[in-house]
């Protein structure tokens, strides 16, 4: 027989960690509230008959937030056979508030006190026997992160579900409230006036009884609290409603408080008493934990934000420029390039030989040039005789390209240089051919037609390989982000950003979707549904995609590598441009009628700092990173095939045929149609226009397009090598440093990919708002790139009339940012 067990608990109490542990699933775990926005289902690893439901974290069963509505609707309507209530052992008082409500539902419940490792480390002790006795239900220790006690808790829940064990209700309320509740229970249990009720409370119809008997207590409490949703769902007749109202008013008069406050107050009194008996907290010096002490610095009013900037700067710098680039070097240059030396054996000797060979070529070139300028003919048979006394000068360049001296090239050196041969890598060590080279060789041996060979090597391997080449950088980035999340720092960032966001009317809650969006915008946009205020939610949805998702990392790495020689500042800038765009948009939008309104309060629990768990960090990194590999094998592969056809075929002499020159291809024709739009931004070539447009399919496509156009085998992307990004000439030729930066800014800020636009459409639930969001993002990105490029050209090459437009846009933008907020005091502008 199959059994369903629900996992319920406060936000950030470790439900999803336990869910993953018990089901073997790899649901996204984050230590900030709102990670689970919908319930998720999984089957117990060790008992396939048991289904586990992971519910969003809630503090109570009041219907105030989306998470609370989802959780309580499921518990009262879905009727799980048992509940595992996860309680954070470090914050047991507050967590038990929900427990008292869950016990009223009448569903067999096991209370699992999580984070016991931390509790024990703090020197605190919990008397589980006393807690179990008082609550009338099993209370068990758990350490979900370490997996300790997880199976025992699950087994206990299954046992309770099987036995349908009758619980002893805890004595939460005092006499007057108990008296009132008894009357309410009676009113909704018995038929009055012979009427037959057919109410759908909890999805179950009971003739004569409005609610299922086991839920009776919960409904009584909710009716006492005058919970509007419950009142509406029960469709009480006038007489019953009046009777209940009378009972509640009597109790309110006796206790001199409103009903909801009475219930809350009595619950907390009960919990305080219970915790006083069953929990021993070790006295601490100055009452500060280690986390509190760290937070004094990390979340400091003045130091918190600069610290966040420094941390993120370091993360992006390391991920894209140093460690990431090192790994990407091997992938692009080796795996998707010519090849690599197994375990690097022979690499140094080979590189030395390549350097010698290049020097020889330069000497030849310098000698020939000198000979020509001296009126000698290098093709002449007696050239060596004629050039006996000739001496050429070869400029010696430093690593940064500056000339730092010269070398005299004599005839003897020229003759030596003529004898030198291009080094063969296999002669220096165990050489493994790169995928494109190996596949090309294999296809040639199989006698495959040239067009198909090109489709596979240039189209598929070029397009997919271009993206896969950057996956290592994504993995490194996700690894560092996962560490920051797991140790508890990212939760603090929401708190730090709250101070900044609050200035323009958003709360730190809006930063949580942006944290999630640093992996992929789609779940980031979905996470915005935890924001109750509709205006704040819309604004968050619109701005979440400004934060660079993983798919934008290849664009950043491409521009940083191709145009800025792998400069240290490009990658971190990309992130902070995103953050700045969110803040500027927030300031601008909040001053409009559509988004004006008071700031919603932001309450969040900061988890205690702890060492990162390798399982969590590696799991999160793999989960996010692997999705990109999968995407490369699906969407990117399809798009690469289509792109290859479009770039290889064109209409010549009135018929469709393969073209040698890409400029005559269908893709060039289409690209040229849209190129004028991007010309004022500095990247009006058809290639970069196609790349930008294809970014809507998936942002990795921006890089993939260049891979297809120039082919990995031709060295377009195997640039991250020892020669420091110098082999990106085909791509770099389309840009100057300024237009490349403008290209980067536009692609970072413009509308996201179609999948994310789809997510916007669903979360906005309105075509009009979706159009507005996409339109806003496009206009914002265009204006930002326009200003950057045009003002840059003004500095570089002097004034032209188009700069007036750039100034007008800049002043317009500054006006929108700094103008007075006419709606600053408005409480409710949009109904």
């Amino acid at each position, binding site marked *: 027989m199959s059994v369903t067990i629900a996992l319920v608990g406060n936000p950030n109490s470790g439900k999803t960690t336990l869910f993953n542990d018990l089901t073997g699933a790899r649901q996204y775990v984050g230590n900030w509230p709102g990670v689970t926005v919908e319930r998720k289902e999984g089957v117990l690893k060790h008992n396939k008959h048991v289904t586990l439901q992971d519910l969003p974290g809630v503090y109570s069963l009041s219907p105030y937030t989306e998470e609370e509505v989802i959780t309580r609707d499921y518990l009262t309507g879905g009727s799980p056979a048992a509940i595992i209530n996860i309680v954070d052992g470090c914050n047991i008082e507050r967590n038990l508030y929900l427990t008292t409500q869950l016990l009223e539902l009448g569903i067999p419940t096991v209370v699992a006190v999580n984070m016991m490792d931390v509790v024990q480390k703090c020197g605190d002790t919990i008397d589980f026997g006393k807690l179990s006795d008082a609550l009338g239900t099993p209370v068990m220790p758990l350490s979900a992160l370490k997996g300790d006690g997880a199976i025992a808790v699950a087994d206990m829940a299954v046992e309770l579900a099987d036995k349908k064990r009758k619980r002893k209700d805890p004595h939460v309320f005092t006499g007057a409230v108990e008296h009132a509740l008894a009357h309410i229970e009676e009113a909704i249990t018995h038929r009055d006036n012979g009427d037959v009720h057919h109410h759908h409370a909890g999805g179950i119809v009971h003739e004569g009884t409005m609610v299922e008997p086991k839920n009776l207590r919960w409904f009584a409490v909710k009716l006492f609290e005058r919970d509007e949703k419950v009142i509406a769902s029960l469709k009480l007749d006038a007489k019953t409603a009046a009777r209940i109202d009378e009972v509640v008013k009597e109790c309110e008069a006796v206790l001199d408080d409103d009903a909801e406050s009475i219930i809350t107050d009595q619950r907390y009194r009960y919990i305080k008493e219970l915790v006083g008996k069953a929990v021993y907290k070790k006295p601490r010096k100055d009452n500060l934990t280690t986390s509190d002490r760290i937070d004094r610095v990390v979340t400091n009013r003045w130091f918190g934000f600069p610290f966040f900037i420094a941390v993120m700067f370091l993360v992006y710098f390391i991920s894209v420029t140093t460690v990431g680039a090192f790994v990407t070097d091997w992938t692009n240059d080796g795996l998707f390039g010519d090849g690599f030396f197994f375990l690097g054996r022979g690499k140094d000797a080979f590189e030395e030989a390549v350097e010698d060979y290049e020097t020889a070529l330069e000497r030849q070139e310098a000698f020939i040039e000198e000979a020509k300028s001296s009126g000698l003919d290098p093709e002449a048979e007696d050239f060596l005789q004629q050039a006996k006394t000739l001496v050429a000068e070869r400029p010696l360049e430093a690593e940064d390209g500056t000339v730092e001296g010269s070398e005299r090239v004599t005839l003897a050196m020229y003759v030596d240089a003529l004898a030198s041969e291009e080094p063969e890598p296999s002669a220096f060590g165990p050489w493994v051919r790169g995928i494109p080279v190996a596949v090309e060789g294999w296809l040639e041996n199989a006698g495959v037609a040239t067009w198909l060979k090109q489709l596979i090597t240039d189209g598929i391997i070029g397009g997919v390989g271009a993206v896969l080449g950057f996956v290592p950088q994504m993995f490194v980035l996700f690894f560092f982000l996962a560490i920051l999340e797991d140790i508890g720092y990212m939760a603090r960032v929401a708190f730090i950003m709250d101070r900044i966001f609050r200035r323009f009317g958003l709360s730190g809650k809006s930063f949580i979707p942006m944290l999630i969006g640093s992996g992929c915008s789609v*779940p980031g946009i979905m996470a915005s549904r935890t924001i109750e205020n509709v205006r704040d939610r819309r604004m968050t949805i619109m701005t979440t995609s400004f934060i660079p*998702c993983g798919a934008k990392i290849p664009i950043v790495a491409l521009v940083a590598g191709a145009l800025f020689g792998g400069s240290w500042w490009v990658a971190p800038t990309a992130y902070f441009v995103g953050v700045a765009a969110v803040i500027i948009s927030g300031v601008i939008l909040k001053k409009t009628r559509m988004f004006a309104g008071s700031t919603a309060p932001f309450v969040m629990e900061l988890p205690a700092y702890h060492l990162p768990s390798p399982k969590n960090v590696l799991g999160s990194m793999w989960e996010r990173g692997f*999705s990109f590999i999968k995407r490369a094998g699906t*969407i990117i592969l399809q798009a690469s095939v289509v792109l290859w056809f479009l770039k290889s075929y064109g209409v010549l002499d009135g018929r469709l045929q393969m073209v040698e020159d890409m400029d005559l291809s269908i893709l060039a024709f289409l690209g040229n149609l849209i190129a004028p739009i991007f010309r004022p931004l500095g990247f009006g070539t058809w290639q970069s226009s196609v790349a930008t447009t294809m970014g809507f399919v998936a942002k990795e496509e921006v890089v993939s397009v260049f891979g297809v156009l120039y082919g990995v085998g031709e060295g377009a992307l195997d640039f991250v090598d020892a020669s420091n990004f110098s082999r990106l000439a085909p791509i770099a030729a389309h840009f100057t440093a300024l237009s490349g930066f403008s290209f980067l800014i536009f692609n970072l800020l413009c509308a996201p990919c179609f999948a994310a636009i789809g997510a916007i459409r669903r979360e906005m639930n309105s075509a009009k708002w979706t159009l507005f969001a996409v339109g806003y993002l496009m206009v914002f990105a265009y204006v930002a790139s326009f200003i950057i490029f045009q003002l840059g050209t003004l500095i570089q090459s002097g004034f032209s009339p188009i700069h007036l437009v750039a100034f007008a846009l800049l002043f317009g933008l500054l006006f929108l940012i700094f103008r007075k907020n006419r709606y600053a005091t408005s409480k409710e502008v949009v109904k």
Partner: protein
Amino acid sequence: MSPGTWIVGIVLLAILALVVRSLIKARKSGCGGSCAGCASESYCRDIRKKE
């Protein structure tokens, strides 16, 4: 066309067909279609299932 071209062409077509099939399947089974393009499937796969 050479036999090699035929064989490689057919294999490639089969792979492309499988990719299209998996994209359609992801769209049908996932969160309203985003799974096919979402880079964090595990996070959002079930989100829209119940709607």
